[in-house]
């Protein structure tokens, strides 16, 4: 055993704000009954088994679940994600990014 893989002092649950946001959205959806938590963990486990990095697996799982339920379809998500990127680009640094700031 040369390199200890699971190293203890990594205590923060989130490494980036989007991970916290994603977590909050998912729990809120379960609270609202859009899916059950056991259904969620089964789907997440299947995605993690594909060796997708943890939070990316979480996002892909949620996108697939919502697409399957017809709640958010991939083209709609992709288009809106692009608009968010445009909005970020058009927003001066230090100000909150608003979707309305996107061009077009």
């Amino acid at each position, binding site marked *: *055993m040369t390199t*200890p*893989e*699971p190293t*203890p002092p*990594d*205590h*923060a*649950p*989130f*490494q*980036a*704000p*989007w991970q*916290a*946001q*994603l*977590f*909050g*959205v998912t*729990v*809120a*959806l*379960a*609270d*609202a009954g*859009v899916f*059950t*938590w*056991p259904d*969620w*963990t*089964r789907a*997440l*486990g299947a995605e*993690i088994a594909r*060796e997708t990095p*943890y*939070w*990316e697996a979480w*996002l892909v799982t*949620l*996108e697939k679940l*919502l697409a399957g339920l017809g*709640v*958010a379809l991939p083209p*709609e*998500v992709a*288009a*809106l*994600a*692009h608009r*968010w*990127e445009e909005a*970020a*680009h058009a927003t*001066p*640094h230090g100000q909150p*990014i608003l*979707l309305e700031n996107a061009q077009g």
Partner: protein
Amino acid sequence: MPHDHDNHLDPMDARVRALETILTRKGLIETAAVDAIIETYAEKVGPQNGASVVARAWTDPAFAEWLERDATAAVASMGFTGRQGEHVRAVFNTPDQHHVIVCTLCSCYPWSLLGLPPVWYKSPAYRSRVVIEPRAVLAEFGLNLPEGTKLRVWDSTAELRYLVVPMRPEGTEGWSAAQLAELVTRESMIGTGLARVPA
């Protein structure tokens, strides 16, 4: 190429915002509720909850017995209930038996007692290896158990999550539950560590 002073959204960030926008527009979630969930689990709920349960079990034999028999009800009596209606089982370490928890599938964890899991708990290395070679994994955490101590690994699920009740450190006779709770680390309640020994 974006200029340095431009905001540049990580593609993951943009996809999360897109989902949240769609879901909010459809009335399935509310921004305030999402923010409250994040605040709760990022800042309010943490291992101090589990530590108070463990310290009480150390000082109150009737509570310890209840915790062993029906942990879900015992911890609910202290105000700790699982958000998803999951059950909790407490497993007690003894000189002969050490317990450690994992979720081999994903990251199931007793949120209400320990907050959200640390990064290593979710890592493929921990999830797969702690089942196959628990002693080696624990040694990497600096925990070298006596050879005679039996080791049991508990695999958490969405429906059932485990809490390890570590052994009370020696030299703490007469300590209050509040004092004892300070000795109960997150690792000791996962089983990758022991409770702190008083200095």
